[in-house]
């Protein structure tokens, strides 16, 4: 049914997405060279999360998908975050 109104990503937009991703990779490599201590991990993970968000929304077309699928994908990552938090709480306050 929805095939007729399907969004087609343009070649130029995909190139722009790649450039942004490569830029973020460069920042990530440079930042870890600075030895910011505990911040290094945080910065690297934040940049990785931004990159994953871009890949999901742009390359995997989630931006143009229905609300149900977008919520389901968000749910998966929220669930993983909760499991991680739960595991760490269990591990450090046992």
């Amino acid at each position: 049914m929805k095939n007729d109104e399907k969004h087609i990503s343009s070649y130029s937009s995909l190139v722009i997405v790649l450039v942004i991703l490569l830029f973020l990779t460069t920042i990530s490599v440079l930042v870890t060279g600075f030895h910011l201590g505990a911040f290094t991990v945080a910065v690297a993970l934040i940049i990785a999360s931004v990159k994953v968000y871009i890949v999901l929304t742009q390359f995997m077309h989630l931006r143009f998908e229905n609300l149900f699928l977008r919520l389901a994908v968000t749910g998966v990552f929220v669930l993983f975050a909760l499991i991680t938090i739960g595991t760490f709480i269990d591990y450090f306050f046992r």
Partner: protein
Amino acid sequence: MAVHPTHTEHIDSETGKLGMWLFLFTEIFLFSGLFLVYAIFRAKYSADFHVAAAELNAFIGTINTVFLLVSSMTAAMALTAIQKGNKRLTLFLLLVTILLAALFIVNKYFEWSHKFEYGIYPGSPVLKNMSQGELLFFGLYYMMTGLHALHVVIGMILLTINVVKVKLGTVNSERYLILENSALYWHLVDLIWIFLFPLLYLIT
């Protein structure tokens, strides 16, 4: 009823795509488990993980990141090309994606054989003399990059099937669900690497 005799077969691409996403969720949780193990042991043996991660070649890791990011773009472009009905461009983009995937594997081969030369491989005597944390790091390193590399190979097979199907015309501008789903799989491979790369290679 027989107004559209050519459209008797109903293809529900929305459902087909949802099914692929559900499968990708299981893949995400498969790797999530390993990421969680990594996180806990990293917290426990942070000094050892520091030392062990320094052994990894960040340059090779960065090159492989670039390969996967570019291949993800070409896979997305292949979908655009088939949607626009450009068969030749679709084939070209799929082949570029497969080539980049192959380069990733070749790089991985050199990276691993370099480690093997130093006696760092699962169950090696060198590894047994290392501290507990370093042992865990290399165990996780081989498990996670190995499982990821397996996914790269599966992705290459899927993309090759698509090349054949596009060539035969069974995948075309009207019907391209398998290409769309294969591209989704390929993006997932990229997505996992985006987290693996900083966690294993950069955080030293």
